[in-house]
């Protein structure tokens, strides 16, 4: 039970507007098709805006994740059997919503022999078939670094391959579960080396976990040394008391500083502000690069 008269400690930029009718309409459509979104499962602060404007990021193979990272609000639990009709439903929802760019992510599925990679492939294929004009972004787990899983996804030709580093090297073991900094970097490197130039490689990090400037720059250098194209930087918001303790509401100036530092290092696109999430306005990002 929350205490009365609790003073808000959230910064002003964490204010978002909410149009109930539009959100309800989106929820109806999604539940009608039995689809999960990372927006709802991770309780995203941008949900009102994105659902209000008719966009969503689908989370396949869920809703339960086989890992329990300390920053994440997606439920950890016993995974459900793979639903082979899910890829088609994602494609149908994408078409119904008229999305010109779709983000498909998943929970971790360390329980499956293919670690969930085949369902990504099936979803990409379904999207290609049902809504061929829609650009596709996949936001994947690390697949334990297994290149056979990555090869299949590369072959399916997503427009953007996204895998989040989440944080700097020193904090990774404190917040991620069964995932390492070097494995994630290896995943990005492998995809960049093996995918065609039509697949952009993207990653994202959270701020406010206690990272230092030099560590963020070291991470940027690591990413650019393997030619990662896009970088997203946003504020960590602690989902509950049980989760990793928020160290800091990072001031806006630092987002701007990191933006410039990233720009200097040659990322093709950088989104850096508190409410940025890995799939937030992903379409604008891709469009900006296509226009160049």
């Amino acid at each position, binding site marked *: 039970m929350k205490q009365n*008269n609790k003073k808000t400690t*959230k910064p002003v930029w964490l*204010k978002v*507007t909410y149009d109930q*009718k539009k959100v309800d309409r989106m929820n109806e459509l999604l539940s009608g098709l039995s689809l999960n979104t990372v927006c*709802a499962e991770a*309780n995203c*602060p941008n949900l009102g805006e994105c659902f209000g404007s008719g966009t969503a990021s689908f989370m396949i193979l869920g809703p339960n994740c086989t890992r329990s990272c300390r920053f994440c609000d997606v439920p950890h639990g016993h995974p459900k059997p793979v639903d082979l009709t899910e890829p088609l439903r994602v494609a149908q929802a994408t078409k119904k919503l008229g999305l010109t760019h779709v983000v498909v992510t998943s929970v971790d599925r360390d329980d499956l022999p293919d670690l969930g990679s085949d369902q990504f492939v099936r979803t990409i294929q379904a999207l290609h078939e049902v809504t061929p004009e829609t650009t596709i972004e996949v936001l994947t787990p690390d697949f334990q670094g297994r290149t056979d899983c990555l090869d299949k996804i590369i072959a399916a030709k997503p427009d953007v391959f996204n895998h989040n580093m989440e944080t700097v090297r020193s904090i990774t073991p404190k917040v991620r579960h069964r995932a390492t900094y070097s494995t994630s970097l290896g995943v990005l490197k492998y995809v960049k080396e093996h995918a065609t130039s039509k697949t952009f490689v993207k990653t994202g990090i959270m701020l406010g976990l206690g990272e230092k400037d030099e560590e963020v720059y070291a991470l940027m250098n690591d990413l650019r040394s393997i030619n990662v194209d896009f970088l997203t930087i946003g504020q960590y*918001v602690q989902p509950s008391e049980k989760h990793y303790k928020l160290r800091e509401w990072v001031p806006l100036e630092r987002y701007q500083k990191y933006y410039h530092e990233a720009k200097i290092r040659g990322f093709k696109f950088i989104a850096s502000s508190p409410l940025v999430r890995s799939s937030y306005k992903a379409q604008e990002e891709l469009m900006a690069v296509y226009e160049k």
Partner: protein
Amino acid sequence: MIKEVHMPKLSPKSNQYFFGEWLKEPGDKVSKGDVLFEVETDKVVSQVESQETGVLKEHQVKSGQTVVVGDLVATIEVSES
């Protein structure tokens, strides 16, 4: 005609929130889309927009109160048309 404003579900994971500030006072004109009040959930401060156009009649909750989805939070008088 009096319309009731109920607390919307603002977080997929919780039904109980911390009521923040009122942005409209009783007697104020409100238009559809105006921000009526702010509510703090675990991850965010949500500004909730009015679904009606009319005059705000009454606040039914105060800043600092805990509210549950579905609670009556305000009444708005809308003109019959």
